């Protein structure tokens, strides 16, 4: 076992580091309420803008809230938003993509609508949806989920088209299996690996989009400890207490970095073909990552 681990480390150093960061992020997010040293929303004006060290390991913000606790809770908020948004986006997108590929009459209406969504940068789509629905965590999740839908739909569409013509699907059709059975039991399992890779590659974008929107004041409302909102709040204090601006951003960057290198590694491991397709994609097959970066 240790030999396997060691060779894994030697071959995929970055991916292993990424997996470590992702794991740390998920554990922190899940366990946040039990591991925070202070109440993240406890205001104490007399202890405002403390430097890191002492009772407050990472210092305090402009109204004396403990930064470490807020960063930890920020991980929870970030995890909740990105996981639900990408989860919803995947469920809807994969379903739409598979149906569009399987039923020819759905093809044009569904996929053209997806193309239209892809004609807007992700953050613009999210902004629009928030301007219709209003602010709030749930609306933010819906907005980011809708940004993910076309990405998953495109992927599932392509994969389903490929699998649909294979012999085992023909055999299933010949035995009189229902469409739902064929889609769910025969086609879906053969599309799963690239979809899992896609999830790991889209989560960092979802995290950044959520933080960007909160930074713009259109995402998670205060006083919730959210990294982007914390950064917005730190702006006017950056001269006095730069650590208030550095720490949440560092956390955000670390997590995004972790997911990026972990996703790359996962892609190489699960779907070596994808890498080739991406590296040499002609105009028809756009690299998905070019569309996913959020918050430019």
């Amino acid at each position, binding site marked *: 076992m240790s030999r396997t681990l060691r060779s894994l480390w030697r071959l995929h150093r970055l991916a292993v580091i990424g997996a470590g960061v992702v794991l740390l992020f998920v554990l922190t997010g899940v366990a946040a309420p039990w591991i925070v040293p202070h109440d993240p929303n406890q205001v104490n004006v007399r202890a405002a803008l403390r430097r890191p060290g002492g009772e407050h390991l990472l210092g305090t913000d402009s109204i004396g809230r403990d930064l470490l606790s807020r960063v930890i809770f920020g991980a929870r908020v970030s995890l909740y938003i990105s996981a639900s948004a990408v989860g919803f986006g995947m469920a809807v997108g994969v379903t739409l993509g598979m149906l569009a590929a399987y039923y020819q009459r759905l093809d044009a209406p569904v996929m*053209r609508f997806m193309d*239209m969504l892809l*004609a807007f940068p992700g*953050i613009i789509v999210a902004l*629009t949806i928030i301007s219709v629905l209003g602010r709030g965590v749930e609306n933010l999740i819906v907005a980011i989920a809708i940004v993910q839908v076309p990405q998953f739909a495109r992927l599932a569409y392509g994969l389903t088209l490929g699998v649909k013509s294979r012999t085992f699907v023909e055999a299933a059709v010949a035995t009189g299996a229902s469409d739902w059975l064929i889609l769910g039991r025969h086609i879906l399992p053969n599309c799963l690996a690239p979809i899992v890779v896609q999830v790991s590659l889209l989560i960092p974008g979802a995290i*950044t989009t959520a933080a960007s929107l909160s930074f713009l004041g259109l995402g998670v409302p205060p006083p919730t400890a959210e990294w982007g909102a914390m950064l917005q709040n730190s702006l006017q204090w950056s001269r006095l207490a730069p650590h208030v601006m550095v720490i949440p951003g560092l956390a*955000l960057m670390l997590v*995004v970095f972790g997911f990026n290198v972990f996703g790359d590694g996962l892609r190489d491991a699960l779907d070596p073909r994808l890498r080739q397709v991406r590296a040499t994609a002609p105009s028809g097959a756009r690299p998905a990552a*070019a569309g996913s970066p959020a918050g*430019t």
Partner: protein
Amino acid sequence: MAIYAARRMLASVPILLLAVTAVFFAFQVIPGDPAQLFVGPDASQETVEAVRRELGLDRPVYVRYLEYLRRLLRGNLGLSITTRLPVTVELGSRFINTIKLAVSSIVLATVIGVLLGTVAAVKQGTMVDHVATVVALMGISIPVFWLGLLMMYLFSVQLRLLPSAGNDTWRHYFMPALSLATFSLAFIARMTRSSLLEVIRQDYVRTARAKGVPELFVVARHALRNALLPVVIIVGLRFGYMLGGAVVTEEVFAWPGMGRLLVTAVGQRDIPLIQGALLVFAASFVVVNMVVDLLYGYLDPQIRYQ
């Protein structure tokens, strides 16, 4: 080629029409009364009714949709709710500022990105390659607004070298352009590296080396030419996103562009302005995409237009 170009242009019409339709109907389901929103909360019931008739809000939705299309064709995007100026006037100057920022960013990203990627590929496996790879990974991972804030803190607050907001002089371009460029720069560098590594192992590159072509020419003239084809697509796509997606960068550096306008408009629920901005984004993205497709076909003789 001309036929292909014409067909490609025609193909983007449905996408645009779909975008117009979506932008129109998305704001039909919005909670609240648009007429009330237009006149403000203090207006009397009669005024609200008068405005409703004037804006045509008392007519059925499909009539208004057709009316909306007719107005669009005449280049009329309506009036902004907050400033009462035509949306086209509001958007015009902002869009030029956004284009200026996007062009400087994409130039920066392409030049540095290709250079970084090429050096990494040529020195594959060395320290230089590892450093370039890690720099590229950081560039992909760093949140744009945080990078902007850090730069602002360093160059404006501490060193007092660069102005932190606005777009009046050339010195105002440095930080916003670099922030906006970082992701694309890193992405282009990665793409260039992997693409060049693939090309550099091919026979014709070996032939060039064998006949004694200097290494610099082998890379620049023989390998890069083919390796940059996929990079062209990325550059084009990224440019398209920059035109629409510079929301955060513009907000951080108070750059008076489209993105900032959109954020303000969303904050004030200025629906005609939001719709106008969205349509400009969609149109510019579709146009950029089309140019990229045509350019790709022009650059790669292996693609035949059928």
